[in-house]
């Protein structure tokens, strides 16, 4: 019962956060230059029509741009929350849902896979590094992990692509090969996808490793100093065994808790990597929408979706933590 209460509370908070985010995003997008009405009317000119002020006004009314800010935000949010409809992009003159289709899921898939890679490296390395007294080995491990952060990911992506092209005569760019581009999802298409997606996953994962490692290291150091560890070592448990048994387990709580923000960090880097690798997923679309085409609706929709997935992941990790650790539940309900 208490757990249900906790979960509901968390869900409510997630929804409130989402609403606030949608307000922030919507406000920002309002400021992106390019008046939708003008753009629509300008396009109509391709078919020979000329623009008058009256046309623009009429278009503004048709698009609902003459409504007050909060009404437009409300409409937008209503459509998003209840109908899953992001409206039309006025630069591309297409429904955003059609434009995005499975592209957002591809981005999310790549980002989550990178997250898994990052922790698959960071957790063992972090725990080991905390205990190891081999300074050289320790240093090398850390150097390798931090290199992921220090090497600019776009440069790394380009270098890998160029080397791959010279050695294997295959350009690792795009999400799918020509054969599967328009095909419906199938096992083969998925394998084709993996054949290319490993590169962004590797690059994003590597660079996320650095931060994950810093977190794990810091937590391990904190935990190691605590009394229960001293107590355990007094009982004669030592070395790796001690490490894995006690502090590692405790350190995992905060790590799980920070997963959502790690996803956030990966989303940060996704557009840049996607740009270089011509991943026609939502990261690259976001870049194009903001930097090249002032496509406010598309940019807003993508930022909102990215944020929503972070909020959702945060919600999930909260629930997971509460399941494992009853202290968390009590913490929230006071």
């Amino acid at each position, binding site marked *: 019962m208490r757990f249900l209460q906790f979960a509901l509370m968390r869900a409510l908070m997630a929804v409130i956060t989402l609403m606030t985010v949608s307000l922030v995003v919507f406000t920002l997008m309002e400021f992106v230059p*390019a*008046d939708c009405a*003008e*753009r629509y*009317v*300008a*396009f*109509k*000119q*391709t*078919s*020979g*029509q*000329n*623009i*008058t*002020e009256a046309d623009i006004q009429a278009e503004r009314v048709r698009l609902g741009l003459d409504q007050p800010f909060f009404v437009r935000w409300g409409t937008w949010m209503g459509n998003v929350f209840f109908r899953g409809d992001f409206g039309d992009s006025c*630069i*591309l003159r*297409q429904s955003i849902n*059609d*434009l995005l289709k499975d592209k957002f899921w591809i981005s999310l898939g790549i980002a989550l896979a990178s997250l898994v890679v990052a922790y698959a490296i960071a957790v063992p390395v972090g725990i080991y590094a905390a205990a190891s007294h081999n300074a050289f080995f320790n240093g090398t491990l850390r150097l390798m992990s931090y290199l992921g952060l220090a090497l600019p990911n776009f440069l790394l992506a380009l270098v890998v*692509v160029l080397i791959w*092209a010279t050695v294997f*005569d*295959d*350009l690792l*760019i795009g999400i799918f090969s*020509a054969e599967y*581009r*328009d095909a419906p999802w199938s096992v083969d298409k998925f394998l084709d996808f993996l054949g290319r997606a490993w590169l962004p996953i590797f690059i994003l994962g590597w660079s996320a490793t650095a931060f994950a490692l810093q977190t794990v290291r810091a937590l391990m150091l904190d935990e190691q100093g605590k009394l229960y560890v001293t107590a355990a070592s007094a009982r004669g448990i030592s070395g790796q065994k001690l490490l894995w048994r006690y502090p590692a387990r405790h350190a995992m709580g905060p790590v799980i808790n920070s997963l959502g923000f790690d996803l956030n960090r990966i989303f940060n880097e996704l557009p840049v990597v996607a*740009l270089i690798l*011509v991943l*026609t997923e939502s990261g690259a679309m976001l870049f*194009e929408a903001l930097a*090249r*085409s*002032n*496509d406010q609706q598309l940019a807003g929709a993508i930022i909102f979706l990215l944020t929503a997935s972070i909020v959702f992941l945060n919600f999930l990790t909260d629930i997971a933590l509460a399941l494992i650790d009853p202290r968390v539940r009590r913490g929230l309900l006071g």
Partner: protein
Amino acid sequence: MKKILLSGAAFFALPGMALAACPPITVANMGGIAPGEFPQQYELGAFQDAASCTMEFKGNPDAAALNAKIQGNPDLLPLAERIPEEPLVMVPYDSIGQYGGTLRALSNATEAGTSDFLSVRHVNFVRFSDDLSTIVPNIAKGWDWNEDFTQLTFFLRKGHKWSDGAPFTADDVKFWYDNLNFDENVIAKPKDFLLAGGEKMNVVVVDPQTVRFEMAAPKPGFLAHFANSYSQPFQPKHFLGTYHPAINPDADAEAKKIGFETGYEVVNFYHGQSDWTDTPTPMLRDLEKSTAMPFATQPTLESHIYITDTTEGRKLVANPYFHQVDTAGNQLPYISEQDELYINENEVRILKIVNGEVDYKSQSLQLPSGPQLLEGQEKGDYTVHLKPTIAQVVVGFNITHEDEAKRAIFSNVDFRKAMSVAINRAEMNETTYFGLGTPSAYIGFSPTPAFVDPKWTTYATEFDAAGAMATLDALGVKDADGDGFRDLPSGDPLVLNIQFATQGGPAAVYEFIAQNWKDVGINATVKEVTPDEYRSAQSANKLDIISWGKGQPVAIVLGNNELWVPPYENYFGSRNAMLWVKWLETEGAEGVEPPAWAKDMMDDVEAFQQAAPGSDTSNEIGARMAATMAEQLVFMGTVSAPNPIVHRNALKNFTEFKTWSYEYYRTYPYRATQWWLDQ
């Protein structure tokens, strides 16, 4: 002498060869067959007579499979019924091709940077031959002008069919003209090229194979229009007419059956309210809906037809009813499929080409990428040709800027001249064009016709930073706030925000110009945008600086006045003076009144189109038009330089292009239908 001897030999041998199969001649080896009326092609009868043979037809062995991929197409008719009774015989350049393969092409995005690839499958009544001066038949087998250039008659091919097997007739031409271009539910305002002396023409269906355009004023350039324009003067009446309320009284009822409110909605869903052949097809507009519709895209006469259309690219298959055959009787096109991929990043396009993943590309390739492209030739197994351009990159000031202070200064011709001489074109040529270009002014016509005084081709192109600064000082464009940059006479800051798309010109050129302008104290910023954004901002009158390629040959100006009348080009090109247009449209009620020279130039181009080409009157008017264009500096020329054309070595029957240009519709003169892929 030798030629006469050979054809004499053919004459004597005639009786014995009457029933022989036709010789597979090529442009490289004509086998002694006399050329026909037009270079590199024959009408079937003429060819059979010339070679004294009877042609046997063959088709793509995969035709049935390809036909099955075209949504809504009925089962394939037998080959004899798929080829017109009067097919066009194309003489291939080097070899009789093999069927099959997929031509891989790159474009920038939906409706952006696509014309290069559109031209590969393009058809029109006529086309320019590869000498870029002879007009030769294509969809029409012939044409006829009346004495005073007011009536143009086209003769169509008997048995010619749309890609779904339905007959193509003169009614399809009239349908295109009357029911699409002159129906405001489809196209709000007809394009100028459809008018003669400002008036609608009368399209007369003489018989199913004869159609006549009757004009209110002479328009000798109208034929050339059909040779170079993207706009195809026919649409499938048998299909689109079903949903067109003017053709079918039950159109709306038909539309409801497939989930639309009105018939016009269906027509526009297919036709896209534009004659461009790359407007989104129903497959892109609404994939789910399109699968329930009779066709995924309307039937065509082109060599290939769309089978998929997404935001990533499009795929096409060969039209099984195409009207051309080669000299051995093989129905064209040879290439079975086409695959167009959208990539907006120049850098990535180059990578794809260097890696040999593109069979042909010219549009959007620019000289600054030359070294990289040349270097990759061997590895990518392709060849690069550097060919002169017709249009050059121009920059123009938005002379009817929304901001009145800016408008006042931009519309001052002294200011424009100062900004033009502030550009160091010689250095631009050295650093970005490897010294291969020529600094030049923009005069509208390109190449420069003989009637233009050569002094205009270099007007205000001589670098003179000191002179530019002196003029700016005199105009009151001085640094008022001490930030190191000049401000508007009012004291408000002046910043030129140069937005450009790489499709319109190399980034290096715009950055160079911005630097030159900063050197004379005018602050300028450079931002790359997508072609889509550039165009809509341009037409919404939101730009400071207009930038794109520009310039047309005389032959095209004769049929199309768009470079000479505000806004000086269409939505897809570089246009300016949007508020003058508004003034003209509303007859002075809104907008800004154009100056006298602009109004004079509008009259001039009309007179130029009506005068007999080459006559003294025509030359005099033409010279005046070029002089005004150069002197007013509505657009400033930069450097005309060659650009790269790339084709894979496996792409056969590819002839070297004369120019790298849009103006003759890119590959259209070089007959992409007879290209084939050596696999």
